């Protein structure tokens, strides 16, 4: 049986991709950001996920104004890095997992989530930057990826509650897949940032950290945060954080935090990430990697 063994929430700022691709990841500006991901990279190496369900938003790359799917799932074999106006990132192609993706898509539709199915698309920084942050610069990405794209650009995006419920439905879908697979789910985007208008540059450290707190443990308060609160408190692009709630919803009633990191700024944006384990009576450590690391330490 496939199971979701961990969740990761992470920013996906494009400039991090540039820093990684051009070897600036240890300089004064980017060093503290990349350092915050060191723990997570070591952890991912020992976790060895078979598949990552990667929740992200497309930034006018694969989708333009012609088609705006609220929730879209990638069921293709592979995805190329998108040319976002300065040539595609020189990172490996992303290998999909069509069997699991189609299984999730079918299950979600029967579960009353009317997904858009995508068989061919390029993936932009929203998807490839988190891969770089978690895995560094391998020849090939060490996991298969199921892209799950959410519209957070044209209003209204889905509610936090709907995102959370979609996460719950994804967990049910994964649990009914017969093959033994170690599956992670990542929610990306955020944290506070505003890229437009005279209020551009808004950052709300207190709110961001309260949001991180709210993903840990048993509270489900975050699913009820209305759009207007994200807009007022975290800037117009802070709304991307609803995507983290798909990840959180998929982890079940209770979570346990393994790691968190927060840093301001990266370009216009507050960088945050959190690593969570579902904690619903199955035991925290589903892959044995926490015990392995404790032995090594």
């Amino acid at each position, binding site marked *: 049986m496939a199971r979701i063994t961990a969740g990761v929430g992470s920013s996906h700022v494009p400039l991090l991709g540039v820093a990684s691709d051009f070897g600036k990841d240890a300089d004064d500006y980017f060093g503290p950001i990349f350092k915050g991901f060191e723990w997570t990279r070591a952890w991912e190496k020992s976790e060895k996920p078979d598949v990552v369900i990667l929740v992200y938003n497309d930034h*006018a790359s694969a989708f333009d104004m012609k088609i705006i799917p609220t929730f879209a799932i990638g069921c293709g074999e592979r995805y190329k890095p998108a040319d976002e*106006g300065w040539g595609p990132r020189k990172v490996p192609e992303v290998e999909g997992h069509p069997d699991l993706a189609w299984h999730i898509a079918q299950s979600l539709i029967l579960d009353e989530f009317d997904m858009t199915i995508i068989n061919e698309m390029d993936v932009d920084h929203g998807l490839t930057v988190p891969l770089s942050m978690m895995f560094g610069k391998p020849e090939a990405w060490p996991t298969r990826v199921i892209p799950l794209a959410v519209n957070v650009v*044209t209003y209204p995006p889905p509610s936090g509650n709907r995102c959370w419920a979609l996460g719950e439905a994804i967990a049910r879908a994964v649990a009914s897949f017969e093959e033994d697979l170690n599956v992670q789910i990542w929610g990306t985007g955020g944290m506070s940032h505003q890229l437009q208008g*005279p209020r551009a540059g808004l950052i709300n450290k207190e709110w961001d950290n309260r949001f991180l707190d709210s993903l840990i443990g048993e509270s489900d308060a975050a699913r009820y945060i209305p759009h207007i609160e994200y807009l007022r408190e975290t800037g117009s692009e802070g709304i991307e954080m609803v995507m983290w709630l798909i990840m959180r919803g998929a982890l079940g009633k209770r979570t346990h935090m393994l790691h968190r990191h927060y840093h*301001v700024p990266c370009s*216009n944006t507050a960088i945050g990430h959190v690593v969570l384990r579902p904690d619903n009576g199955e035991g925290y450590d589903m892959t044995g990697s926490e015990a392995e690391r404790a032995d090594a330490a």
Partner: protein
Amino acid sequence: MSGPRDIHAYLAEFEDIPGTRVFTAKRARQGYNLNQCAMSLMKDENRERFRADESAYLDAWNLTPEQKDALLKRDYNRLLDLGGNVYFLAKVFSTDGQSFAQAVSTMTDMNFEDYTKMMVAGGRSPEGNRSIKEGR
């Protein structure tokens, strides 16, 4: 269900956020040609044609005269008012060889140097920037 059910009340609140244009359906309609035009700059050959004669390039996209003028002037706040969305306008930033932060700073009352300093010092505070009506 956590979302607002009254679409009018939902949209009205967006007008109360200082210095912000939320990309509503109304703006998406108004800016459709503008955003698709910006999107066309994803292709290298289009970027070249645009650079060679911006005005002629824009004429093929059925923009309003205001949209065309604002785009030629790179007046991004006005472009937002005319239905532009920042992720689409970003194709113009990269065509111009401008970083996202550089272009974004032109929408504020700061130059790029001061904007960068503000970001490094922790960004713009939400204090006083949440609501026009309530002044908080």
